[in-house]
């Protein structure tokens, strides 16, 4: 280390603290990291959270189950559909009502589209964090098409609230299938372009390969889920392990990498986009007929007494919803196990000894969404 050498020569150096955030271009919102630095080398990362805390869990204790669905949009706003789905699945399982096959397939397609749009945004921001400003606009260009598809069917682009307990809000728009197929065809030509621009760039490879290595054991002990954990070889895909909706009938690979460095976390997400497209392709032509809203669900939902848990795979990892019900129309206690929260706190472990620039790259590949961390 520089400091040790300097001390030997009698020059006094001092480690210092720097506040990265809450207002910082690459903390993806209002996350505050306190960095202990030796020159540019990171000694310690202390994440301070709470700047966008809206006490969602407490709010949910006053809300009805139908209202809770809407609140979950505001957690991980990039996996909004999956968040809604988690609550809806929990309510459906607790009431022991099934949804029609049509709903299951629509939900799965929508989830995968959401995952794609989330990864597109992540890719764009990742490039920008490393200083390649153009990728940001490319990511947003392709994400725009998905948002348009959402707008047509759900009436909203970001906080869609498309899921309801027992089904979905509306039937799919007549253009839906055609537009999704057009998008898949379009994006299949654009995804290799993403690789040309970043993945195969020599500067990008130097910046990411061998940086911020997270071993499989550490990934498990820190509870790292999603592509971040799978890049370290930790098989944790809820879609595979506890299939929900229509995931049991589609054929897809769980992307597992070995090294667990920044580049493999990057690559895991890139490959996951191909898998998402393949899932959508398998389902888009086979949407079965059926009702879109189960008639078994009453207007006021009262869950039976007891504890319920449901987890889904969001774009960032495992989202768990845990509800303690006392039999009334709102939960006694609700707890969200959000993937961003667990993933963020590994930062100190992997960033030690690297430079500030590497920290930015690591933070980007962990793919944090701050409202997901501060619920």
């Amino acid at each position, binding site marked *: 280390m520089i400091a040790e050498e300097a001390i030997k020569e009698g020059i006094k150096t001092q480690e*210092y603290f*720097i506040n990265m955030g809450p207002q*910082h*271009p*690459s903390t993806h919102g209002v996350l505050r990291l306190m960095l202990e630095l030796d020159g*540019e080398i990171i000694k310690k990362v202390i994440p301070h959270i709470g700047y966008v805390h809206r006490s969602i869990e407490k709010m949910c204790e006053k809300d009805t189950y139908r209202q809770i669905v809407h609140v979950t949009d505001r957690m991980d706003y990039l996996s909004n559909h999956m968040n809604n789905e988690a609550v809806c699945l929990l309510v459906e399982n607790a009431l022991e009502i099934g949804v029609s096959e049509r709903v299951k397939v629509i939900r799965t397609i929508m989830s995968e589209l959401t995952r794609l749009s989330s990864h597109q945004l992540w890719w764009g921001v990742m*490039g*920008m*964090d*490393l*200083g*390649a*400003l*153009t990728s*940001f*606009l*490319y990511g947003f*260009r392709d994400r725009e098409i998905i948002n348009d598809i959402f707008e047509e069917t759900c009436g909203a682009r970001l906080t869609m609230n498309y899921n309801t307990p027992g089904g979905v809000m509306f039937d799919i728009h007549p253009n839906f299938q055609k537009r999704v197929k057009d998008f898949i065809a379009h994006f299949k030509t654009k995804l290799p372009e993403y690789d040309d*621009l*970043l993945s195969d*760039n020599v*500067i*990008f490879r*130097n*910046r990411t390969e061998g940086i911020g290595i997270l071993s499989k054991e550490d990934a498990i002990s820190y509870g790292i889920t999603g592509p971040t954990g799978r890049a370290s070889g930790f098989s944790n895909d809820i879609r595979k392990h506890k299939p929900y909706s229509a995931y049991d009938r589609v054929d897809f690979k769980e992307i597992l990498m070995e090294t667990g460095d920044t580049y493999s976390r990057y690559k895991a997400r890139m490959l996951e986009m191909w898998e998402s497209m393949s899932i959508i392709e398998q389902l888009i032509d086979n949407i079965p007929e059926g009702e879109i809203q189960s008639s078994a669900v009453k207007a006021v939902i009262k869950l039976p007494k007891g504890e319920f848990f449901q987890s889904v795979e969001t774009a960032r990892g495992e989202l768990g919803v845990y509800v303690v019900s006392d039999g009334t129309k709102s939960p006694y206690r609700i707890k969200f196990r959000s993937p961003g929260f667990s993933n963020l706190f590994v930062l100190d472990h992997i960033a030690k000894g690297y*430079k*500030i*620039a*590497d920290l*930015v790259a690591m933070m980007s590949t962990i793919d944090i969404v701050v409202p997901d961390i501060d619920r």
Partner: protein
Amino acid sequence: MYNFSSLTNSIHESLSASLSPVMVTVVEWSIIGIVLITFVALSVMGMVYIERKVAAFFQQRIGPNRVGKWGLLQTLADFLKLLMKEHIMARSADKFLFNLAPFIMVIAAFLAIGAIPFALGLHVMDINIGVFYISAVSSIGVLGILIGGWAGNNKYSLIGALRSGAQIISYEISALLSLLVIVVLAGDLQLSAIIESQADGWWIFKGHIPVFIAFVIFLIAGTAETNRGPFDMAEAESELTAGFHTEYSGIKFAMFFLAEYVNLFIIAAVGATVFLGGWMPFHIGNWEAFNSIMDYIPPILWFFGKTGFIIGLIMWFKWTFPRLRIDQLLVLEWKYLLPINLVNLLVVAFIAMMGWYF
């Protein structure tokens, strides 16, 4: 070919006829100052506009298109906005140095632009050590960055400034060594003499592969020296918020901005002058007919065309590549560019000695 020195001489003579020698000097320097400042202001505005349009083109956007025809006045509007903004200074900042830093940057940029020949006879000064002079004054700019980063009393600025200090001092070597390749071939440090030596073909065509290598290294080093992406260590927006000028606002920030673009212009102009023949039209050996057709295009257009080409190249890789890390940047310079450059210089010296160039 029109020689601008006849114009400047006639101005000088008409002034001498009616004024005392001291007044002549005063008036002439005032004219030069006004012309230079106007030129720099206009060209920087042009470059900012072009940069925005180029970025928009790369990113599949439209770019500025609201203020004025095709958004041409957008830069002017932004400049006016910066002019009217509040000057904010941290209480703990070093006031004198904080205010001094932007001026050092701008002065260094203006000093260098004085030595660039825009056309035959159109230059402020044609000193016999032109290449040396330009690389000397362009390294003053780093002082402005260091002082600015230090005086703001902000840790981000300090990191940015120190990064930039390490970077510019390193890449200065490469930039100068790659220019030396041409100096060896042309046998002169004077920029007008280097241009004259390219009358029968530009050095990039005449000098075989070594000159091409030198040109590529010059582009890399030049980009690094002007603190532009992928070498924008000092700014590193996503790491250090705004690097060395985090604490600056209003017109002082605008001065850093101005200096950055003037430096870009200087690097491009020097590259164009030394490697691509400056204002010299495209000539091929003794093809008289072809050469005389090329002479119809005015030299000033040749100069700005070539400068624009290099500016375009630099903008191209700014908007494409990710940023390097500071240690990778220094490794690139000291372990790769510098040895390549030294070997290259030896090879060129040998070629020049044997006369093995066209």
